[in-house]
């Protein structure tokens, strides 16, 4: 039917730039060209031996990992509190807690820039971490809220009646059942931090640069060449691999509904 063809076309459109970015990496040309005139893996070598990129990559990974950890540590208890207790003004509170998701990154980046300057903290890696946690925590909050809301309250109650202390109940009953939410939220938190540009671009310095910001300045200044393609290919492979894994374990439908879109 026409609808099917149309959808295929739109999906192709959606995948197009990603396929192109990855494809470029396998080219041998000096400038990014798709389709490449000849195949070669040399750009991967160039990318991996570029110290700027490697440092930036390392920074990004560490930053993203720390962000994910922190978001879970402060987001999980918050989600539990929101579900268990009917707090006054809850809808407003929830909207507020989730608002970093909707506000433009540029805004927050600029605001953080002013804040770090005015407060004397300065542009440090900790400042970037704090900013990343702010924009990433709503993801963990949202997915955890969704999963926890769907849990039968009776399970925790029964555990209590059977003699489990509140901590035991949390560890043996609540946490295992919340895992899908935490994993999905954690993944989005990781990606949000790892890929972030609008906030990071205002807060990074030459010492504390992240991978996407490095790529950005590369693209803006030096015109594009396939080295970016190589980095992109690796990143895309990793990310899609993770997504695929998540899908296998939890099912992508669940992740979407958890993501609330």
């Amino acid at each position: 039917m026409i609808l099917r063809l149309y959808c295929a076309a739109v999906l192709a459109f959606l995948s197009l730039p990603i396929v192109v970015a990855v494809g470029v990496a396998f080219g041998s040309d000096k400038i990014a060209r798709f389709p490449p005139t000849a195949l070669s893996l040399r750009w991967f070598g160039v990318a991996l031996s570029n110290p700027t990129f490697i440092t930036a990559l390392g920074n990004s990974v560490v930053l993203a990992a720390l962000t994910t950890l922190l978001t879970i540590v402060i987001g999980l208890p918050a989600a539990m509190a929101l579900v268990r207790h009917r707090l006054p003004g809850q809808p407003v509170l929830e909207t507020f807690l989730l608002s970093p998701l909707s506000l433009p990154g540029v805004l927050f980046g600029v605001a953080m820039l002013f804040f770090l300057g005015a407060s004397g903290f300065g542009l440090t890696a900790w400042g970037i971490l704090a900013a990343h946690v702010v924009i990433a925590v709503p993801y963990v909050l949202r997915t955890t809220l969704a999963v926890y809301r769907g849990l039968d309250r009776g399970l925790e109650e029964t555990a209590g009646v059977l003699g489990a202390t509140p901590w035991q109940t949390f560890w043996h009953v609540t946490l295992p059942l919340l895992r899908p939410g935490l994993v999905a939220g954690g993944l989005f938190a990781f990606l949000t931090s790892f890929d972030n540009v609008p906030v990071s671009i205002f807060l990074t310095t030459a010492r504390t640069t992240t991978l996407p910001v490095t790529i950005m300045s590369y693209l803006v200044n030096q015109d594009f060449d396939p080295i970016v393609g190589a980095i992109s290919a690796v990143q895309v492979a990793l990310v899609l691999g993770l997504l695929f894994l998540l899908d296998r374990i939890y099912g992508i439908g669940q992740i979407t509904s958890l993501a609330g879109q």
Partner: protein
Amino acid sequence: MSTSAGGSKMADVELRGIAKRYGAVQAVAALDLRVEPGQFVSLLGPSGCGKTTTLRIIAGLVRPDAGQVIIGGRVMNDVPVHHRGLGLVAQNYALFPHMTVMENVTFGLRMRRAAPADIARRAGEALEMVRLTGLGDRYPRQLSGGQQQRVALARCLLVEPAVLLLDEPLGALDKKLREAMQVELKSLQRQVGITAIFVTHDQEEALTLSDRIAVMHQGRIQQVGAPHEIYETPRTRFVAEFIGVCNFLEGKVIERGMGAVTIRTDGGALVAVGASGQNAPAEGVKVVVAVRPEKLVVGATGMPRGTALPARVEAVVYVGTAVHVHLRASTGERLIAYRQNDSAAPVALAPGAEVVVSWSPEAARLLPEGSA
């Protein structure tokens, strides 16, 4: 179960003046109840009567606004849920979906850090007791409703609770399975010798299972007694109406005699009610006469003593074991009579027939008017 005698474990439960309000609704009001050790007591009532709230208060899941919960002689008000040593089976069983049957069943013991060998042995015995041996490695979703319910029971029993609390646990089962489980549940309770408090809205279930029934309505207990007591001698109109079927005749006391009280119904009929053991109300007081359908005799003439009312048959319903006869008395009241099908002869009554409905004075009860 090694400690199945449980004599040392079973406790009595006492509720004194329990009250709980939710916003504008008084869910439970001034509730007093005593459950003896080893007794099976049902909290029976329609939805919203406060029975589940009461159960949850006993469990410690809800804090009462007033009153005391005393279990085994110990005041439990400030004791947190996980220290009360009770067992709870909910309507949806609340089996941990991420744990196997064995892990579910041994949960309580594992939380108490019992010795693994001990746990394994007792778990095996518990599973055997509920006839689920061999299903230890299954997950709850792989079990049928009846099996899940038994896992929930075994899980409770393994922690040797002082009291077993059950919140409409058989509600999700179909009729045949429910009746089978009722028998199993009762025999298990007897065998283990545990005190049980059972919440249900199904009066047949309560009558079948309980040693004593507490009938609840709008947050209060209207009557507590053995099933026989509740059925034969209800104390309020609500109780009479909620349990089984009952005929009601409203009227006024016109004479208090030696062995009987005479009432003139609103329809004008004269009814005699035996005054045995009842505090006969004074003359002029408004009352309700309650008679169970199986106590009514339908025939051409009335019984020698007692009340006899002329009536017309409106409908005859055949239900196999009995015949339900719907009548309208000449004085206007509607009555239902049950006649046992104890002979193979076809029913001789037909709609439109003019008959006499009668009952003996002892068969009728006097209830306070209104009885909310």
